């Protein structure tokens, strides 16, 4: 059985826990199709008899409400926002993710600290500080990064009619219209993800092709995790 492994000092009292479950992270920028693939993986894993828990960002019972209210306030500073998200992340990690892993579940995380780091880094936060801050986080068993280039991303999001304020990074004042802002902001995020690929050992999954072909690639990679359990 594998022991909990953290990026830094970890969570007090949980340093030596046995975690029989698997933490699988699906990363990728807004509109890349994460939810579609997570739903398909969820069904598949349950069909083959696995217990599955899906968790996302900003859904914690502790912070969820306060964070939403804070986000709508125009007076929230950058560090405050970063720390609010980190609190939310810690709450879900300790009260949702780790207990499920202890009980042997497959936990699928719809984004993880990498998205939070990317968003804050493009807004000027110190990248070293962010990495130290998230030292309490558990190292996942695998991170699948859904990779897409900016032009294909723009096309996807337009077709779905899903250009929105936050995903376009309108708070940053990059452009005076939603489309240009989205293009610039998402390009910056993609650059940040690109930089993190090696550092955090992402397994890259190309989003080229049909949903089915992407899903097949994902499942093949996930099957490998079950076959070769990490001993770390």
């Amino acid at each position, binding site marked *: 059985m594998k022991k909990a492994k953290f990026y*830094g*000092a970890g*969570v*007090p*009292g949980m340093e030596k826990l046995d975690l029989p479950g698997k933490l699988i992270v699906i990363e990728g920028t807004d509109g890349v199709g994460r939810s579609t693939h997570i739903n398909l993986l969820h069904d598949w894993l349950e069909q083959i008899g696995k217990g599955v828990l899906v968790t996302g960002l900003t859904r914690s*019972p*502790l*912070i969820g*409400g*306060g*964070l939403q*209210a*804070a986000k709508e*306030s125009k*007076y*929230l*500073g950058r*560090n*405050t926002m*970063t*720390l*609010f998200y*980190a*609190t939310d992340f*810690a*709450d879900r990690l*300790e*009260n949702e993710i780790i207990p499920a892993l202890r009980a042997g579940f497959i936990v699928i995380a719809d984004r993880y600290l990498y998205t939070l780091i990317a968003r804050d880094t493009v807004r000027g936060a*110190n990248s070293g*500080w962010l990495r*130290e*801050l998230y*030292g*309490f986080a558990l190292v996942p068993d695998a991170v699948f990064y859904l990779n897409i280039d900016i032009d294909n991303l723009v096309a996807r999001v337009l077709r779905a009619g899903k250009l929105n304020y936050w995903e376009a990074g309108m708070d940053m004042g990059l452009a005076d219209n939603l489309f240009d802002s989205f293009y610039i902001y998402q390009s910056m995020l993609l650059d940040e993800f690109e930089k993190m690929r090696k550092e955090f050992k992402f397994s890259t999954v190309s989003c080229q092709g049909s949903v089915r072909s992407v899903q097949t690639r994902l499942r093949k990679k996930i099957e490998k995790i079950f076959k070769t359990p990490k001993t770390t």
Partner: protein
Amino acid sequence: MSIREKHDYPGLLFVCEGVDGSGKSTQLNLLRTWLQQEGYDVFFTEWNSSQLVKKTTKIGKKKKLLTPTTFSLIHCTDFADRLEHVIIPPLKAGMIVLADRYAFTAFSRDVARGVSREWIRSVYDFAVRPDMAFYFRPTLETAIGRILVGRTSLKYYEAGMDLGLSHDPIESFRIFQTRILDEYHAMVGEWDLQVIDADQSIEEMQTQVREKALPLLKSHNLRKSRR
């Protein structure tokens, strides 16, 4: 900006630290009165008081949802909000800011709860380094005596009940506060805390506080509202 480096704002930041019952709030209030009488513009901020964050902290405490890590992070979120809105603007304007508790409260209390010393220091790295930090150091018996006077019960997190140290709140409080005092003690040199013996009378303590503050006030060209 880093808490490890001197800031270059024209204003002055004084903070007071110490366990509950050390008399620090009384002392800071007396310092404020004096500075205002001297004609300085004085701003005041208290630990855990940001309007934006307070609600979440309150819910978390009431429902006992907080772990050592989230307790620590939510207080830092509160601090970040106050730093930006209450502390830094007056410092930029050449005024005086008094803070009742500062990052050192987290460095002692959160570590007493089990979080890593190194981690909590890096989390608060964005803080402004105070120009002077007073640490009111009572004996444990004094602190506990002052807190327990006129109280029928201790609050859950205040007594460190979340740590399972003891089923008896007073015993838990005693163990928890001892740990906090140990952390403060170890920080005196690291952060150049100005130690004030908190077993003295209120007047004696205040005399020392003013004596220590005076050279800093004289060496800075601070904004005054009255002359």
